[in-house]
């Protein structure tokens, strides 16, 4: 009985659990360190378990609908109305993929932070904010309501900004936090204006019913720009990437690893809006918007990696690589969008390109999270992030070195790690679309490898240094957190096919199948 109740209310529990964990945190924190740590661990474990269970249910039985306040959670339309009036969560295979990403990485990151942050003060607030961030990101990827999406976007932005500024660090972190909060708020206001424009015309906030009614008037085009540009900014695409290096560098490493996931939730929203809300309209030119994503992607890939190479701060360098890797996802999905009108091309290479792009999202969340966590481990033991000062750490921190190698080889697309699996899909399919783009993608990978070889050399190789004689291996929770992410990187690299068949392909089909998304709400109407 309990089991069915939980299974029926999974989407609501997915948001309620982290919120509950967050708001009780100040109270639980009074009971002492051990209780607080146990509470944090339990909250993260439960949230991840619910996320994975929900994803499993969606992949096994199809789209899960959860209508708040209706007689049954499946009743999308009130009996006497032709359009949905309630807030609902609509979890299809693409949302399920994102839920898996958030679940896996949030678990690894929270366990890591238990040890990494243990010396800091004000940890109740820190963890309350971390759980709010998790709740916001989860909400963004499961909601089927545009205004609800805005609310979750704001929750994740605010919690993210507060976490960036958490270590005041002589004001530098607060400066970065303010920058992030300001940009996020302006972006969110643009999104809200777009929602207002769409609501004023179509009397709907529900994504599916808006998608069914959209006429692509001049105002809709304005709304599209107001939605697409802020979301592209939030996912860190060049030329709107300027906040990423500051934010990612100054945030505590566990938070940085999660901010990567949060920016990918914006990427998800961008795809959702382009494919589901605006796709398949007669006047709509797929090629134009496909190329919009492709150009953003190529710029991000190339400028990101070239900015990364000269960096001296290891986290700043990784932040520019995060921009560069986002480019691959935009490129892969952009190629899919560009050939969406051409059934033949979509079948032969479009879907493969999209699969590569979406697979890269989950792979990136894992290896980039892992890299940021290793950077945090090194900062914890040495107190510096400056590559010119670091060196010889391979002697004292061998496991951190191994994890760094796994992450670095994965980001550079070296087999047999997961970055290779998704990049290979992108290279193959993009080559059939335009060989030139594929070559750029490969060159960027080589530059990425070069950059990480340099980082590896300056951090871990060389004779042991006297000033880092105190450095030793990280405590167990940090080790477990990194090991969890590293395990995924290796497993998904060695056996990518099960992941592609059971997780990525359904997500690609869900993204392309616009009428299916609408029919889940409106039925035959």
């Amino acid at each position: 009985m309990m089991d069915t109740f939980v299974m029926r209310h999974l989407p609501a529990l997915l948001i309620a659990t982290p919120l509950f964990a967050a708001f009780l945190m100040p109270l639980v924190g009074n009971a002492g360190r051990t209780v607080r740590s146990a509470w944090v661990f339990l909250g993260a474990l439960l949230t991840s378990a619910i996320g994975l269970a929900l994803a499993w249910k969606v992949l096994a039985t199809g789209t899960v609908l959860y209508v708040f306040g209706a007689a049954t959670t499946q009743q999308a339309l009130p009996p006497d109305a032709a359009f949905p009036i309630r807030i609902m969560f609509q979890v299809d295979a693409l949302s399920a993929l994102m839920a898996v990403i958030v679940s896996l990485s949030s678990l690894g990151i929270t366990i890591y932070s238990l040890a990494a942050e243990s010396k800091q003060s004000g940890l109740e607030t820190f963890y309350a904010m971390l759980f709010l961030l998790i709740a916001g990101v989860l909400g963004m990827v499961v909601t089927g309501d545009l205004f609800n999406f805005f609310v979750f976007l704001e929750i994740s932005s605010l919690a993210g900004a507060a976490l960036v500024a958490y270590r005041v660090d002589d004001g530098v972190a607060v400066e970065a936090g303010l920058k992030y909060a300001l940009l996020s708020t302006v972006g969110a206001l643009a999104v809200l204006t777009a929602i207002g424009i769409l609501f004023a015309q179509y009397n709907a906030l529900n994504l599916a019913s808006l998608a069914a009614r959209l006429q692509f008037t001049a105002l809709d085009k304005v709304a599209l720009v107001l939605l697409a540009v802020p979301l592209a900014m939030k996912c860190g695409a060049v030329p709107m990437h300027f906040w990423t290096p500051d934010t990612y560098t100054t945030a505590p490493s566990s938070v940085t690893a999660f901010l990567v996931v949060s920016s990918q939730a914006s990427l998800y929203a961008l795809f959702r809006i382009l494919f589901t809300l605006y796709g398949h309209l007669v006047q709509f030119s797929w090629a134009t918007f496909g190329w919009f994503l492709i150009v953003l992607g190529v710029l991000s890939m190339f400028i990101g990696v070239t900015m990364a190479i000269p960096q001296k701060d290891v986290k700043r360098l990784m932040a520019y690589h995060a921009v560069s890797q986002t480019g691959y996802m935009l490129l892969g999905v952009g190629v899919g969008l560009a050939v969406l009108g051409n059934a033949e091309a979509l079948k032969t290479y479009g879907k493969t390109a999209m699969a590569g792009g979406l697979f890269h999202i989950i792979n990136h969340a894992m290896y980039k999270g892992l890299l940021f966590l290793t950077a945090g481990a090194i900062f914890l033991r040495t107190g510096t992030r400056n590559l010119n000062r670091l060196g010889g750490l391979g002697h004292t921190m061998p496991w951190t070195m191994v994890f760094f190698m796994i992450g670095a080889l994965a980001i550079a697309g070296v087999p047999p790690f997961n970055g290779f699996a998704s990049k290979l899909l992108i290279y193959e399919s993009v080559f059939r679309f335009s060989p030139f783009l594929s070559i750029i993608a490969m060159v960027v990978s080589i530059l990425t490898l070069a950059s990480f070889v340099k980082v590896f050399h300056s951090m871990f190789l060389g004779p042991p240094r006297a000033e880092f004689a105190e450095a030793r291996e990280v405590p167990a929770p940090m080790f477990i957190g990194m090991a969890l992410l590293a395990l995924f990187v290796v497993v998904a690299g060695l056996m990518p096919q099960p992941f592609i068949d059971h997780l990525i392909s359904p997500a690609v089909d869900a993204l392309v199948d616009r009428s299916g998304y609408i029919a889940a709400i409106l039925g035959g109407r």
Partner: protein
Amino acid sequence: MMTLLLLKLPYFTVVVLTLLGLAAMVFKKNLIKILMGLSLMESAVNLFLVATGYRMGGVAPIFTNAPSPHMTLPTVQALTLTSIVIGVATSAMMLSFAMVIYKKYGTVDSQKVKKLKG
């Protein structure tokens, strides 16, 4: 003609407020003034939302003793309330950031608050 103009007036106000807010954010150097500009833009968006929800002659959907059967769905009002609450939280957080910056740097001039680089 006059009523039409009056009905469009909120939208003009929205445009003016947005431009004022943007100008403050772009041209002012004081962090507090930049945040005031952001607040202005928030008010503009809220006004826009409420303005789109207005229907001539419509009444609130309270069925007891309703003076007219023409009712408007108060969705935008609900949205605006939510948006105001979010706006308050955002402003409070950013103003407290500005306070910390003033404590650490001794200034709120955005040109001088530049320890971040690259």
